């Protein structure tokens, strides 16, 4: 049998590499701008399209799906071809995948600042873009499985298992978390409400971290680290155990984002237990990576790619130890909603995803351009300034998190809150926020230096777009193959492998989600909780458009420190009409669940116009455009019909007369504001936002009044 000659497609790898660097710089720059906005709100340039609430999702989407996403595809397209000893299945599909993914990112860049968002964290993009994501993901899947099927290597290396698990799980997560009813071309309502929506969202959110930020990177680690160190992985058996245990356990851990909320207690406990168990496979992977360098540590001293890999793996180890610790209820009670979580996330993102990406770029670009790296000194500078950047970012954020978390819980000896004003705790941590932006700027500087270094490397070499290779074609299996061990057989059957991975992740999914989604007694209803009025519904959608949920939670946990500060703790039945839920994950400002009736309409008007008028020192941006912009009431009917389809009990035909009720309520608020000498027309957006804010958390009080 003669060896077959074929060519690796390096051009697609190069394209994804360029996209990684460009989007990385943009995503990190946006992150730096919003970090500065948290102590200098005027950095939004008094523009609604660049306020923190609207741009924060742009930062997260840009770094997760644009920077990390393109890096994943770069790494997969390079390593898959070599591990399979085959060119990618289809050049056309590779191109569709590349340009389709960039189109999705550009759509995000346009729609998110416009306020077109579902408000589901890390899944903010509206339904037409969701469909586009599905199509592009399927294209990627066909191309990947096509390559695996036409391979010249019988057995599938562990890196490819991680790629397969990534593909199948992200597909499931994206579809389930995007089940929504469109009410217009760029507006939809989530099918699930309240507690159910929260569970689905954090099952998705946590596993987006698991299967987008972790498993593909572990796959790349298992390929690129042995290549860089020129030695096999420390223990292949450990990598198998790592793979199966990780994908089995990870899928269950989502509820640790919802501790002390109204999610059923058993689901919270399940999330905690599996989060703790997650330490074992995570550290198994980290140790396997670090021990691969056993006996080769001298290489780390000289090779910048290995330096990045070592710090990246260490950051992975730190983040995956801290994650389970944060899921302990006692720790979570302090850390949740604070900057501690921001520090935790960024140790993973900057250290693990960032540094692994940089290592791969430094290793891969000179190879596909058949040249040497332009400047090793510049790469070394990048490593050190990047490491310093992580430290300058993470340490102040940990400090801010501990400080604010503890201040919010502190009582005086007399038994009253020591810091009753939330703002006092915010102002205390502003110096840490300044330090954090310095850390971010250092990190970004390193990335810009890397971009220049890689550009010069590319210029001095020449891209080998089609790299010639040779391998023997796959022979027919020998007769004894049927007696092979079970796992060995699985390693050469990609479709069966995908099905096995799917079954493993679906076990946790079904057991965790189904009881809450299907057993109505898990979500007790409250008679006094009524659907939102049309004006409140429109106000809620403006709240979503402005991204208020990025800074304000709407769930009061059952702690004395929270019930004293905000009011009665949240009940599951209060959220049954909340499509989507708006509990939030970070309190840059106070919780708003019991905001209704706390202040007068004029207070809210003045506060939205200029927060510093009512709360001196506030870091919230002005929302003065709400005063001048007219509320779009042409959508009211469609929104009511959408809600009716989801089971919200508006009377039949109400969609036709909803605007009459809307006008009546709006006039009432405008008249009330006029009494405080505030002249505003009832058709302005601010009236709807005030109506919504004044409704928050009041149903339960109404119920109590009725009972009394």
């Amino acid at each position, binding site marked *: 049998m003669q060896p077959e000659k074929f060519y690796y497609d390096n051009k697609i790898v190069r394209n994804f590499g360029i996209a990684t660097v460009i989007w990385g710089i943009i995503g990190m720059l946006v992150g730096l701008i919003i970090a500065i906005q948290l102590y200098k709100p005027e950095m939004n340039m008094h523009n609604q399209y660049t306020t923190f609430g609207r741009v924060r999702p742009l930062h997260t989407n840009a770094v997760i799906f644009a920077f990390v996403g393109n890096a994943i595809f770069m790494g997969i397209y390079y*390593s898959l071809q070599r591990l399979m000893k085959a060119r990618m299945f289809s050049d056309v599909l590779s191109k569709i995948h590349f340009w389709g993914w960039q189109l999705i990112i550009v759509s995000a860049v346009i729609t998110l600042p416009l306020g077109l968002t579902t408000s589901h964290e890390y899944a903010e993009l509206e339904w037409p873009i969701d469909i586009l994501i599905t199509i592009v993901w399927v294209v990627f899947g066909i191309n990947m499985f096509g390559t695996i099927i036409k391979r010249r290597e019988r057995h599938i290396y562990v890196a490819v298992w991680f790629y397969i698990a990534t593909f199948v799980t992200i597909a499931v997560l994206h579809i389930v978390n995007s089940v929504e009813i469109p009410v217009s071309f760029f507006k939809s309502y989530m099918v699930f409400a309240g507690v159910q929506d929260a569970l689905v969202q954090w099952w998705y959110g946590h596993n987006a971290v698991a299967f987008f930020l972790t498993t593909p990177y572990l796959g790349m680690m298992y390929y690129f680290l042995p290549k860089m160190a020129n030695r096999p992985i420390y223990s292949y058996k450990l990598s198998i155990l790592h793979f199966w245990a990780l994908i089995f356990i990870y899928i269950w851990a989502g509820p640790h984002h919802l501790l002390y909320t109204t999610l059923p207690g058993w689901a919270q406990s399940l999330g905690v237990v599996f989060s703790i168990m997650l330490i074992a496979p995570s550290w198994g992977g980290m140790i396997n990576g670090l021990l691969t360098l056993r006996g080769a540590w001298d290489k780390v001293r000289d090779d910048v790619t290995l330096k990045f890999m070592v710090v990246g793996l260490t950051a992975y180890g730190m983040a995956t130890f801290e994650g389970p610790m944060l899921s302990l209820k006692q720790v979570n009670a302090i850390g949740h909603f604070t900057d501690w979580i921001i520090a935790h996330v960024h140790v993973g993102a900057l250290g693990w995803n960032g540094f692994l990406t940089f290592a791969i770029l430094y290793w891969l670009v000179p190879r596909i351009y058949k040249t040497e790296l332009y400047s090793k000194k510049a790469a070394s500078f990048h490593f050190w300034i990047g490491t310093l950047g992580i430290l300058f970012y993470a340490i102040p954020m940990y400090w801010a998190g501990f400080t604010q978390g503890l201040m919010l819980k502190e009582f005086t000896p007399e038994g009253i809150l020591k810091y009753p004003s939330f703002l006092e705790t915010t102002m205390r941590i502003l110096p840490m926020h300044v330090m954090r932006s310095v850390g971010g700027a250092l990190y970004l500087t390193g990335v810009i230096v890397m971009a220049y270094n890689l550009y010069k490397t590319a210029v001095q070499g020449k891209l080998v777009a089609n790299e010639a290779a040779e391998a023997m074609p796959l022979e027919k299996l020998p007769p004894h193959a049927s007696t092979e061990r079970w796992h060995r057989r699985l390693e050469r059957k990609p479709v069966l492998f995908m099905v096995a991975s799917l079954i493993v992740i679906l076990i946790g999914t079904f057991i965790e989600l189904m009881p809450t989604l299907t057993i109505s007694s898990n979500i007790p209803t409250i008679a006094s909780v009524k659907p939102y009025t049309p004006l409140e519904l429109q106000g809620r959608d403006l709240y979503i458009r402005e991204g208020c949920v990025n800074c304000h939670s709407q769930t009061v946990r059952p702690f004395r420190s929270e019930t004293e500060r905000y009011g009665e703790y949240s009940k599951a039945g209060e959220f049954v009409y909340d499509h989507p839920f708006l509990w939030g994950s970070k309190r840059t400002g106070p919780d708003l669940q019991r905001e209704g009736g706390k202040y007068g309409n004029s207070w809210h008007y003045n506060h939205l116009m200029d927060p510093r008028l009512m709360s001196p020192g506030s870091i919230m941006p002005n929302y003065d455009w709400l005063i001048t912009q007219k509320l779009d009431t042409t959508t009211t009917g469609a929104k009511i019909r959408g809600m009716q389809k989801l089971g919200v009990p508006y009377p039949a035909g109400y969609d036709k007369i909803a605007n009459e009720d809307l006008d009546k309520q709006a006039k009432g608020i405008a008249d009330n504001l006029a009494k405080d000498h505030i002249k505003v027309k009832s058709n302005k957006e601010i009236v709807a936002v005030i109506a919504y804010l004044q409704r928050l958390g009041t149903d339960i009080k109404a119920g109590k009044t009725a009972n009394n």
Partner: protein
Amino acid sequence: MFRQFTEHISGNQVYLLFSLFIFLVFFIVVTVLLLMQRKQHTDYMSDIPLQDCTEENIKLLKP
């Protein structure tokens, strides 16, 4: 002890215990399969990334 334990399980806690049981079974099965793997095979698998079949490398390797 086991009886006392089962008597005190309330309603939904069975989901938690059932989940842990499934994982335990799964983990044991994977571990057993792993221990049964031949060293020759794992050595072969772990060497796959180091095999470089680019034409340039093959030329270098030819005598």
